């Protein structure tokens, strides 16, 4: 990135507090714990004739997860008013999403297009958008990297990577 560290200073600097995400993550863990416990009860958490059933161990795991995440949840709530720890500044979160969104698009695209074309597009996008590179270096790097992967994986180590319609068209 182009030095986003020069973030805004002074009164307009806005930060997100830690307590919101903290509560959300704890709630999510509690939900997962609930699922684990529910499913352990479904498969049986007691003893059968031949020993403990499939839910025996996960049931207690679920209980411990529930207990620990509830602790985090409650202690966040209890200190809500005087907990002003920062999660991240607005500017910082913006740069995180600037990475996360193209990355998600890249992985969704991989499902249909294979790995090579989306990789080239991702690298090219970043170099053009954030690196102030000209077309020539951007295009050559974004083509060279997938090509190197093709040679190393498919040719050298014989590990196939996902391919899409374009590679099929080229006969691979």
């Amino acid at each position, binding site marked *: 990135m182009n030095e986003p560290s020069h973030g805004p200073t002074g009164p307009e600097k806005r930060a997100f507090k830690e307590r919101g*995400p*903290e509560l959300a993550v704890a709630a999510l863990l509690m939900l997962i714990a609930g699922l*684990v416990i529910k499913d352990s009860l479904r498969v049986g958490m007691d003893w059968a004739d031949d020993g*403990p059933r499939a839910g025996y161990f996960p049931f207690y795991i679920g209980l411990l997860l529930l207990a620990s995440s509830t602790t985090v949840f409650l202690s966040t709530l209890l200190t809500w008013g005087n907990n002003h720890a920062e999660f991240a500044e607005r500017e910082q979160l913006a*740069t995180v999403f600037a*990475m996360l969104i193209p990355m998600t698009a890249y992985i969704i695209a991989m499902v249909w297009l294979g790995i090579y074309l989306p990789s080239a597009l991702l690298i090219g996008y970043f170099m053009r958008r954030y690196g102030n590179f000209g077309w020539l270096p951007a295009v050559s790097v974004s083509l060279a*990297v997938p090509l190197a992967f093709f040679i190393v994986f498919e040719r050298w180590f014989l*590990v196939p990577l996902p391919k899409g319609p374009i590679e099929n068209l080229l006969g691979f």
Partner: protein
Amino acid sequence: MEEINNLMQGFSVAMTLPNLVYMLVGITLGILIGVLPGLGGANGIAILLPLTFSMNPTSAIIMLSCIYWGALFGGAITSILFNIPGEPWSVATTFDGYPMAQDGRAAQALTAAFTSSFVGALFAVALITFLAPVLAKFALHFGPAEYFAVQLLTFCSFVGMSKEPPAKVIASMMLGFALAAVGMDTVTGQLRMTFGFPELLKGFDFLIAVIGLFGIGEILLTMEEGLAFKGKSARLNMRVVLQTWRELPRYWMTFLRSTAVGCWMGITPGGATPASFMSYGIARRMSKEPDSFGKGQIEGVLAPETAAHAAGTSALLPMLTLGIPGSPTAAVLLGGLMIWGLQPGPMLFVEHKDFVWGLIASMYLGNLVGLLVVLTTVPFWAAFLRIPFSVIAPVIVVICAVGAYTVHSSMFDVVMMLVFGIVGYLFKKLKYPMAPMVLALVLGDMAEASFRQSMLLSQGSLSIFWSNPLVGSISGLAILLLMWPLWSVAKEAMGSRK
């Protein structure tokens, strides 16, 4: 001396030309991984693991463990020259390493860092050489109850020794266990927590979790910090190296202390990162001039680097002898062993002597090769960091995606990698430790199996974990470590009342 004979035999396995080449390749890749943000020992090895499936196990583990040594060395380069820790365990190295570089003493700092890494590793390998066979022989008598007690000890020591709040350590650990339980139950064959999704049948692979948590998560964090590489360039010439080497023996006490801290933290799963901080702290407290720390004191580079390398190396001791890894990277290596059809644990020392001793011998050689390579190639690696982050970031995302895909050739895994990446970012921001989660994910099935077997033996009574002095003392120690945070809370409460 049976160990010496075995070791010599190990050297004859490791010293073949192809293995030496793999060593060199491993070290080079490792330094690269160590230098680049977002790629580290654990996920770097996880990504490269599929490439070694077709190699013979001895060469494969030599290459992979050398990647690990390389990553340990590489982390120091970025910390000292750029004030950017390439690895979490080199954060403490930035405290004094970067001021030294600012001061024009980059070459001394680098030489000190590399040499102390080497010394730390050497002590730890020597420890492995002599302690591992003893421990393995001892562990041959372990039953399921003893195994579960050791696993309990591993996990309880996370709670006892982490800086993070105990509730978060336990939550992260239990999430790992829960994810490990997804899929088919190995004993009854029943499906658990798949909720009708066929993709979940085979469960969550920890390699995917490692790539996501440490790779994608790290990239997101690096984005947030807004990287601008502005560093010192450095050249190492032989004169400075020799001059620094002449000074180093003066700090023998620092070396000794840091090695002890490192080995202890590596064998118990504290890991390299807390070891480096702890060792730095001790060095400062013991120093005659504690105020000089943080301003370019060479001891401030020696202490964390020695401890990190000693911890990183000795984490392989419990992995080899008990099948219980001491760090996420050791866990990935353990995953590799299992994929190659080698069951880690005491039987490994009986059934695959060549493999074990070849690996131990390669640790000596690998670290020596590593030292020589880093000392000669520093300017080259520093140049890597001048590649703009707008190129490095997407390339690392591509590398992670390729790595996640090749584990099982499954697109679902790539999607999971992204999910784990977001989890990794959130966990890191909210101070949930990630190592317990990864280790629980790796050891989950094993812990569950040994727990259920113990319960079968005792007809469901927990008293089996106190049924003999051995298992009793291991379980007792585990409970003690689990209660450790309570003790410090109590102490604080007492202190505030006064």
